[in-house]
């Protein structure tokens, strides 16, 4: 009996799920090697200001374009953290410096979507569908990825953190969402046998909702089983974790450590649309970057040895104007920077075809251009990290541009 049917049987009979460890799952035909290589996608919704995340302080134009919101040169008050003598990291991301030094963190600058829309909603749509410029695509690229990955489907193979199911994971492959943080592994009302049974009966015969309902039940059972053996239920005896993303990241790491069947995780963070008063080394943007950096560092650390087999990619729908506007902020732009962290990242480097931010180089005289298509970055990830064939990649990213031989941010 395969695992899905076993879970269904247990659900129907209202029996408790007894934690017997991974070996028992292995006995029913678990092949966790198929899910060994992990992918975490972090979407920054609202167009994060990439030019202040990885700032080209080495280009004299940078300070000219951003007289008050620009980062000072490394070493100065409010200065960027030097990366390579030309680019500097926003100081609020200091928690990522160790990963940079360990060469597990890299950036691909001037990357993004070839479509020039400056509508958040369209641009996010394109980033998630993986078909920029085409609105008719029904599913998300992360879901298409799921359909080509080898190995059996399972309830928690792809998870989205939070109460909504994002476009990027929509499609025919099953994916589920879990609550962020500790809530994701809390006892559910449906764990009570009488209640679970009552609702199971109603939902099993619902044409519309049976599948979503069952996916939720299966995923919950799976994470609860996985978590029980690590005493995740017990109160955290150590220092309390900060709220928000760092806390959620710590929980995600534990979840992934405990449940080897989780292969893909998705998290979205908002609040990046800094049209006014974004600040420089300190201020609005800095306040948002700090927990993001801490969370990513926490995730990397929390994964432990699993981090060697994980790639985390951070992306946003477009960047912001190179020039600051009259309100100490920036408007919608074009090119941005993608971040990659992980065991096989050839880190400690800023990749991409960088042209500088002189007037002649700016897209429409205002934005960082896009010189690396985001799909090229994701395709390299798919090819080298997830070992997908060209045919499989073509299914995930139909009509994608030709590979860029110069782009080499992942070791094979």
């Amino acid at each position, binding site marked *: 009996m395969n695992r899905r049917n076993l879970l269904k049987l247990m659900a129907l009979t209202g029996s408790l799920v007894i934690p017997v460890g991974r070996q028992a799952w292995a006995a029913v035909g678990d092949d966790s090697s198929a899910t060994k290589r992990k992918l975490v996608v972090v979407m920054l919704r*609202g167009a994060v200001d990439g030019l202040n995340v990885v700032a080209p302080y080495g280009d004299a134009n940078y300070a000219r374009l951003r007289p008050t919101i620009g980062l000072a040169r490394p070493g100065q008050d409010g200065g960027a953290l030097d990366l390579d003598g030309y680019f500097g990291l926003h100081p609020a991301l200091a928690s990522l410096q160790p990963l940079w030094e360990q060469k597990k963190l890299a950036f691909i600058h001037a990357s993004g979507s070839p479509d020039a829309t400056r*509508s958040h*909603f369209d641009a996010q749509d394109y980033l998630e569908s993986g078909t920029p410029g085409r609105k008719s695509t029904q599913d998300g690229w992360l879901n298409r990825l799921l359909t080509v990955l080898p190995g059996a489907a399972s309830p928690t193979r792809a998870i989205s953190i939070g109460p909504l199911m994002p476009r990027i994971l929509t499609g025919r492959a099953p994916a589920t969402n879990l609550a962020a943080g500790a809530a994701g592994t809390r006892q559910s009302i449906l764990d009570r046998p009488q209640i679970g049974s009552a609702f199971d009966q109603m939902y099993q015969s619902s044409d519309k*909702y049976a599948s979503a309902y069952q*996916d939720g039940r299966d995923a919950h059972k799976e994470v609860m089983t996985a978590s029980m053996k690590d005493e995740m239920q017990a109160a955290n005896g150590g220092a309390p974790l900060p709220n928000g993303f760092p806390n959620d990241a710590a929980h995600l790491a534990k979840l992934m450590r405990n449940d080897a069947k989780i292969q893909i995780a998705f998290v979205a963070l908002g609040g990046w649309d800094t049209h006014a008063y974004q600040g420089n080394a300190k201020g609005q943007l800095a306040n948002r970057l700090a927990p993001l950096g801490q969370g990513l560092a926490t995730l990397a650390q929390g994964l432990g040895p699993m981090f060697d087999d994980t790639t985390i990619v951070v992306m946003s729908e477009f960047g912001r104007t190179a020039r600051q506007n009259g*309100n100490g902020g920036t408007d*919608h732009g074009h090119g941005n920077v993608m971040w990659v962290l992980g065991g096989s990242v050839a880190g400690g480097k800023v990749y991409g075809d960088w042209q500088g931010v002189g007037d002649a180089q700016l897209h429409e005289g205002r934005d960082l251009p896009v010189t690396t298509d985001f799909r090229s970055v994701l395709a390299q990830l798919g090819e080298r990290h997830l070992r997908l064939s060209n045919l499989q990649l073509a299914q995930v990213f139909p009509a994608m541009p030709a590979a860029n031989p110069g782009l080499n941010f992942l070791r094979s």
Partner: protein
Amino acid sequence: MKLPIRFAMLALFSVSTLAASAAPLTTDQQALHVLNRLGYGPRPGDIESVKQMGIERYIDSQLQPENIPLPAALSARLSTLDASNASAGEVLAEFLAVRKVANDGDEAAKQKRREVVGKIVEQDAEARIARAIDSPRQLEEVMVDFWFNHFNVYGGKGLDRALIGSYERDAIRPYVMGNFRDLLGATAKHPAMLFYLDNWLSTANDYQPVPGRRGAAQGQKGKATGLNENYARELMELHTLGVDAGYTQKDVTELARMLTGWSFEPRELVRNNRTFHFDAQRHDMGDKEWLGHHVGAQGQGEGEFALDVLAMHPATAHHLSYQLAQYFVQDNPPPELVERMAKRYLETRGNIREVLRTMFHSPQFMAASTVGAKFKTPYQYVISAARASQVPITNVRPLLGALNQLGMPLYGAQTPDGYKNTEAAWLNPDALTRRITFATALAAGRLPLNKPAGQDNNAAAPAVANAAEPPLDADSLLNTLGPAISAKTRATISNNPAGLRAAMALGSPDFMQR
């Protein structure tokens, strides 16, 4: 009764996903349908009342909310919400005062700020939720939700916390079924929108702030120079034309120039409740080329002209009609209906009531395939549960908590596009579990929906209110819901322990749809 039967006959030939819809709709089903779509579902006795009145008469009466009196109890309750009833200037004054003291102050000052802000949040929420649950002007409440969302402002952004109550009360509610241009103008000039999308800061590119001028704007605004495109973009993309209407980046910038000076002065707002101020000093006096129009310098008139053009643009007619049809009829609205609504919009120069009338009287609206086709948003789910169960509520915090949990915090959409209302947006594995959790808590009387006796509206709800509420009566609930709960689900419910039945009804797949 001839009309609905003919619609039902048409439905027989249309593709339907509901097994039950092979037969024409019964009057019970039609009554439930209009209660679900023009409102937040039935209260006890509602299905019967609508049948008595007649479906068409019910629809027409809901389209004239001014003719429906509010129950005395509801009016009395709303009148106690002093923070919510105060003017924008008064609320802002209090908000700024506690914010300033708390910024330099000690824990006591911070606590005071929490109390003041907490009271504003709670009362604004109660004003909205009490009406949604208890007002007989159900369509008006649905339209307030629809238009607020269309002209979304995020309550968590700075001053908007203090301005959002006035925004809904003064710039949305009075215009929900009137002329769209009036609604558009009211939102464009309300400080909540001017602040949220930064237009209050936008100036001509060559503007120089005059230092030390008496009455000059303070703080952020005093130093702001240069064009801010944020509002101009969303005005076209979201509020009117829609993203595919063919406007260019240049049109965005030119419109932003036309709207420079559309602002407010926080000091003036606080002192004199002056919500809108056209600041001629900040206005870009140059000529503009916008959407094929040559626009000469006319001060505030340029922005008014822009709103006139946008309100009556065919793309706007289509965009709004699409959104209304998606909200009220089906996730993929029938194109023929959208076209007819757009035509009606233009014919009536933007009369929202008439567009709604066209929609509600359409065969597509009353089709069997439309009944039950919409998945409830978290807001619709929570309100319909409260309405059906008729639990007396004096503490709305558990409902706000449920909305947060379900991903739809009230006044909490951070981005200007607001919340979606489709199944794709809201149906996911975790959502069903969370809704069932809410349903079981509500049914068991475990939600602290009532403040301890003696506590008035001037105190924020305590952390632990009276937790002991009576559990819901399943029979009464099932009676109220009528055809909303299918025979099959009713059979399953009756096969389960009595103590679970109310929870099962509210958490059933049937109750997830409308």
